[in-house]
């Protein structure tokens, strides 16, 4: 059995994740994104003079920075959090499987589920939104970069979404190891840290996963209106650092995991 992936744990986790009506609930926001993209695509001519530059806003602000973290939150906190909640984590921890394997397996499952439920819809939406871009100078692109008119905009968004899914999953999994109330803490991160504080204090961009995604998408695809601020190098390095920190420190915390009763 490999050291990073345990198929039995993966199967149990996946069953717990998708077993009930919950998976329908996760599938609802991506469907909304696709409907929005198709509607906008049909109703606007993106190569005309009256272009509003909407693909950047829809794919970046709605897809990458809102849909992806929320989906990753629902998935990332339920692969481990529900087991902590009903204390069935004890059975898992009592097995002779190394804690690192438990964590990485759950991380792989969470990443894969986020890929399916968030990244695939974003990928489809990005092709719908940007295919047929001929020459758009990007009216609100502060750098006024010419759009190359190939698939690179879509590729940029997709790469960013894949990276985002992996990093978000690692980080939210880490949060559900560290805290009892993982959903609340995750929400604090998404709502207060990424959406409220990062908007006001520009230095926090360096510690915000959403900004890494936007930086990646912008550097690869130059899609206007993304609102990206970080460079490619910073985004890649910080993504790797975030993931490694979450996995290594998460493993350490899982090794000394303490199960208490209902938190007072």
């Amino acid at each position: 059995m490999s050291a990073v992936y345990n198929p039995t744990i993966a199967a149990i986790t996946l069953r717990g994740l998708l077993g009930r009506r919950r998976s329908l609930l996760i599938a609802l926001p991506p469907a909304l994104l696709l409907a929005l993209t198709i509607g906008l695509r049909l109703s606007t001519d993106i190569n005309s003079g009256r272009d509003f530059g909407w693909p950047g806003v829809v794919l970046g602000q709605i897809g990458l920075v809102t849909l992806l973290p929320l989906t990753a939150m629902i998935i990332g906190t339920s692969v481990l959090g529900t087991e902590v909640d009903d204390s069935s984590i004890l059975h898992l921890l009592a097995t002779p499987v190394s804690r690192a394997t438990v964590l990485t397996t759950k991380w792989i499952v969470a990443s894969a589920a986020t890929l399916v439920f968030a990244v695939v819809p974003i990928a489809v939406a990005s092709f719908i939104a940007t295919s047929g871009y001929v020459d758009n100078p990007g009216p609100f692109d502060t750098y006024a970069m010419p759009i190359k008119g190939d698939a690179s905009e879509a590729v940029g968004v997709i790469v960013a979404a894949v990276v985002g899914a992996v990093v978000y999953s690692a980080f939210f999994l880490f949060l559900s190891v560290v805290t009892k109330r993982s959903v609340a803490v995750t929400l604090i991160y998404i709502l207060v840290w990424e959406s409220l504080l990062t908007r006001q204090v520009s230095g926090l961009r360096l510690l915000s996963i959403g900004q890494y995604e936007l930086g990646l998408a912008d550097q690869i695809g130059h899609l206007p209106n993304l609102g990206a601020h970080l460079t490619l190098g910073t985004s890649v390095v910080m993504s790797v650092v975030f993931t490694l920190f979450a996995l290594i420190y998460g493993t350490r915390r899982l090794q000394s995991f303490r199960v208490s009763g209902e938190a007072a």
Partner: protein
Amino acid sequence: MSAETATPSGVIHDIGYRTYDGERIGRLGIVRALYWHSLRSAWGLGRGPKAKVVPFMALVIMCLPAVANAFSVSRTGIRAIAYDEYMNSFQLVLVLYLAAVTPELISRDIRNRTLPLYFSRALRRTDYPLAKVSALITAMLGLTAVPELLLYIGTIGSRHGASEVWSETRAFLPGLELAAVYSVTFAILAAVLSCYTGRRAFATGAVAVFFFGTWVVSSAMVHLTGFRPHYHHNPDGNGYFVQPHDPGIGPKISGLLNPANMIEGMKEWIVGRAPKDAEIPYPGAFGAVYLAALVALCALALFLLMRRYQKASLL
């Protein structure tokens, strides 16, 4: 078991139970107790320190701009944040608070199956959700009205003369009313969103995804459907920005997609103007639709909430 006490006949073991023959507080008393208990637990009072973290963190974050404003006004005379933009700017904190607290109030009773205990008393089916929602609204008022009040106090501290204080008060009162509208709307919607599941985590997720998701989509749609300057391309490759004179119907409808934007549109309609950097364009006569939609949404949510507690399957 002693023979001296008035032993009724036919009792095999008298282990000393006595029936309660004092005054019974009845339905109103139960509702009041339920309200008070819910209000306390909405702020984590009477519970452990962990339950107090999110509510009081939210309150501190909400109050920070008001405190910063007090310094700003006293030093430079410049107001940091307007009364009627406060709630909209920091609505994510309200969402965070509700997402953390509403499931505590509503989902826990479903999960722990304590509802039969409540309904076996002299409590009507509609009393329970009403008590919970009013407690939630009151708790939200603490989170919305206290920062407004701090903002007001911090500002009039640097104002001189009765007329200045009076004009400040006239600006403050609409802000307070707006805080009340936000509290009522958000509390009712959050309550109905979390009354369908006993799992706290799901209810938290539902509340957060609903408010945050619709807000992002609605705000983006307001901008994308025309309420922003767009770039006009010339054939020679140059171009210029065009500010749309009339935003059209698109942004106004997009504003209806989110409760906070709905409140903003209604506010602008009632006040009769929109600030330059408003999230929602001035709706004009369309404002009546905002008001109607808001009332209808709250009524529908209340109706669903009431109907939920009529269901026997809940027990």
